């Protein structure tokens, strides 16, 4: 079971709680069993380069504090990439704003953690735009100016056309039309925009 926990904790995109572990693992396992496995893991990794630690109501692998400088150096050379789930969430917000969390979840087909939204907010890429006028008055999310700056976009309309779904070689015979059309669009968009 210790090994199962290791695998789950590594793959998870947020700290994983005892409750979640119980749900995923065999239900016959008692909380006490799981808890003692967690303690064992914590001890095992205590002396290693990666630690198995309890944070924010769950468990996570983290680099050992002793190697902080080293990790910092790695990240200076290459900034970390966004996780896939963060990218998906950000993409939905960018293309479909203003949008509520429930709507994001419906599109992604999986739940979106508060931590993920907080991370994107902390990163300065998304913000609250207000509340939607439906029961429960959920928050509406949208992207920020910082998002445009960091992704080198002049305006939201510069986001790559999601209808580029038709892949370049799929439409050889349409290619000319498409590219002219796209150019026309961008010009039109700009001029429409300039008039505001």
């Amino acid at each position, binding site marked *: 079971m210790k090994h199962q926990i290791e695998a789950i904790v590594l793959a998870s995109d947020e700290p994983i709680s005892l409750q979640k572990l119980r749900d995923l693992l065999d239900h016959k396992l008692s909380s006490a069993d799981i808890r003692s496995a967690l303690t064992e893991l914590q001890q095992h990794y205590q002396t290693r380069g990666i630690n198995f630690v309890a944070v924010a109501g769950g468990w996570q692998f*983290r680099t050992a504090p002793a190697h902080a400088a080293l990790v910092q150096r790695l990240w200076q050379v290459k900034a970390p990439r966004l996780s896939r789930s963060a990218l998906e969430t950000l993409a939905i917000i960018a293309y479909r704003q203003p949008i509520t969390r429930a709507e994001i979840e419906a599109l992604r087909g999986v739940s979106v953690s508060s931590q993920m939204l907080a991370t994107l907010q902390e990163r300065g890429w998304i913000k609250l735009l207000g509340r939607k006028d439906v029961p429960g008055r959920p928050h509406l999310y949208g992207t920020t100016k910082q998002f445009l700056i960091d992704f080198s976009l002049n305006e939201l309309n510069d986001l790559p056309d999601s209808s580029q*779904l038709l892949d370049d070689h799929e439409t050889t015979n349409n290619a000319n039309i498409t590219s002219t059309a796209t150019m026309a669009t961008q010009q039109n968009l700009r001029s429409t925009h300039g008039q505001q």
Partner: protein
Amino acid sequence: MNATAHIPFKQANQEAHALPAVHLDQFDGPLDILLHLIRSQELDIFDIPLAMITQQYLDILETQTDMDLEDSYLETAGDYLVMASTLMQLKSRLLLPRPEMDEAGNAVDPRSELAAQLLAYEQYRLLAEGLNERPLMQRDVFTRCVFPEADDVQRPLAQADLDALLLAFRQILKRRSGEVRHQIFTETISMREQMSVVLQRLRKGSLQLDELLRDTPGREALVTTVLAILELWRQQSIIVLQGEHCTAITLLNNDGNT
């Protein structure tokens, strides 16, 4: 239904094997069928009994014609027919009174090219299976996907990657419309047609983009419609208006009155 029950065996010395009925969509192309026929009857790939194999191959193709044809079959029907004619051509070449010679004057078996092609194909089929058995990311193995923080490490800022963002969005769209996508692909929607549909609908007055796209089924139709709108716009047949960022987009006929 037994596809092979009525095979006329032209070569009396060929032992008849009862082949289990097969359906075309179990196969991945004509080479796949031929290999199946050869391997399941334990035939020598360098000495293929062409008359028998050709007949069995045609029988498999024939059993499909009555059925509700699969889209995938229609797309590749040509490939299956090309193979049928290749087989028949080989058969006729074998019947020539004088064997074919290469430059060195050695007899050439017209079937050797086919045999080589089949072997190469079989090889790649095996390699593909081997590939499928490897631990595949997101299926068999997973890596971490959050930054592993440590207490003394300042959380680094993630890098912005526009391509990755677009890819992520496409994948979501694909995930959502994956089911519809397949059906739509068989009938190609022409952009011209879609352009007249759009104009037709705008004749009754302005429409919002969402309204226009709402009842467009499937990804292909959606994309075609969007392309049609762009083309109409480029030709200045329609006018496209957007009040503010991220608000509704309105489409109008550009007939001079509006």
